[in-house]
């Protein structure tokens, strides 16, 4: 099967400082893969580079086997069917929930279709219907995460890039977010997630990469990688 997304030898630097150094990974259609890594390991840098927001020093990024993402601008990458749940949500805080969702579907030409999809999001997240007229900045952290996820889903993406969706949420909310991630994936949307919460992430993912200071040091089936000593030491609080 052709990989939906294929990254080869990706290297990104901020000035002279390398942030990502020779990362290769791939994700097949419908898969859920996770990149585990601590703060500063380069997780967000990878996501931003995939979206054309950062220019890599070296490497290749291909979508659907043939499309070279490095030649495209962010909005063109989005039109291929890639959506983003950014780190820390990054909603448009001065805009209403409704406007955030409409902007999530900015590239959807059929406005009736977009309204239907927003309606579906309101069915799924009734809280957002109640608050559709409020500015996003006034919502609680959990509600904001719902908006961020709904905003990404209204474009009906093929691939969803999720950057630490559990960050800064209450423990109960964290469980909800991970079960939501699994549910979204079961609708056939491929997900590439970066996370620090290894325990939860490995429960939902099919495949995991372990990122340390810009390099992938381990990769394997999520069900097996949790047993590896390196992963245990860094993320699961064993043997440290």
């Amino acid at each position, binding site marked *: 099967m052709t990989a939906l997304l294929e990254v080869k030898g990706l290297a990104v630097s901020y000035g002279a400082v390398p942030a990502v150094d020779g990362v290769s990974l791939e994700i097949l259609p419908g898969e859920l893969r996770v990149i585990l890594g601590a703060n500063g390991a380069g997780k967000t840098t990878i996501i*931003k580079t995939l*979206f*054309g*927001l950062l220019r890599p020093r070296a490497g290749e990024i291909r979508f659907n086997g043939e499309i070279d993402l490095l030649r495209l*601008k*962010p*909005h063109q*990458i*989005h*039109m291929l069917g890639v*959506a*983003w749940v*950014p780190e820390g949500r*990054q909603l*448009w*805080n*001065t*805009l209403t929930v409704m*406007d955030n969702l*409409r*902007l*999530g579907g*900015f*590239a959807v030409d059929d406005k009736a279709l977009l309204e239907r999809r927003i309606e579906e999001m309101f069915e799924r997240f009734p809280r957002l219907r109640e608050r559709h007229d409020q500015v996003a900045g006034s919502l609680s952290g959990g509600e904001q995460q719902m908006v961020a996820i709904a*905003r990404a889903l209204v*474009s009906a993406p093929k691939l969803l890039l999720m950057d630490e969706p559990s960050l800064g949420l209450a423990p109960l909310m964290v469980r909800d977010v991970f079960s939501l991630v699994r549910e979204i994936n079961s609708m056939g949307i491929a997900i590439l997630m970066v996370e620090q919460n290894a325990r939860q992430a490995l429960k939902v993912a099919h495949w995991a990469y372990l990122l340390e200071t810009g390099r992938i040091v381990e990769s394997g089936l999520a069900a097996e990688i949790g047993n590896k000593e390196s992963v245990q030491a860094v993320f699961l609080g064993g043997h440290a």
Partner: protein
Amino acid sequence: MELLLQQLANGLVIGSTYAVVAIGFALAFTVLRVINFAHPDIFMVGMFAGLLPATQWPALGFGIALLAGAIGACLVGFALERTVIAPLRGRDVLMTLIGTLGVAIALQNGMALIAGPDPVAYPALLPRLFIDIGPVALTLRQIVNFVICLGLLGLVSLYVRRTSYGRATRAIAERPDVAAAFGVNVSRICQFTILLASAMAGVAAVSVGMLYGSASAFVGLLYGLKAFICMLVAGNRYFEGVMVVGLAIGVIEALVTGYLSSSLRDAAAFFVLIGVLYFRPNGLFGSYAT
């Protein structure tokens, strides 16, 4: 009491013009992170662009002059965006500041070369007519200027709140990267924003030229300074805030003229600026972090 009401009315008329120029500044700064120092001179070019049909073919009337002002200003805005702003956008804010300042100087002196350095008479496009509204007497031209400017402000407000492009404009203002990642063509919206700001300035400029009966190659300076102050006082978070401050500065100036001294008028805006920034450095209505 009559003086107060009269000065309030005069102040709203001139303030509405400040607001239109200020909103052009604010759009460029908020959406593109560009301090467009050429904006006041795009206003000036609009004034002369409207002057052309107004003197050559006066029978065509006021509407054509407004249209010509919009088109003239738009053409300059388009050229400015292509040659200076787009290539420098995303670099240090000083680069575009200096670039647009250079264009401003070129426009001023270029126009002074064509039209002469002294003010030229602006044709009376509308009859000289006084209209009494209760105790307040306004000229027809004042009223028309106010209605035009308020109309432009209303249109911008509708645009940014109710249209898909307008929402994208506000989205870029707050988070350009996220907007791009959700399918917004940032360069295209930036270009459109400059064109919109220029067209508005051009229309307002023709109306102001008619209101005062004169046009000058250096008229942009005064409006530019006032409009810039309006944006700083309001902060760039809400376009409507910039509009309100524009109107307020006009009113304050009129009150200073009426009750203190007309020679203090142009200083009033600076006192407001100092006072507001001392207590609220991000402006009255707040600013986006940059």
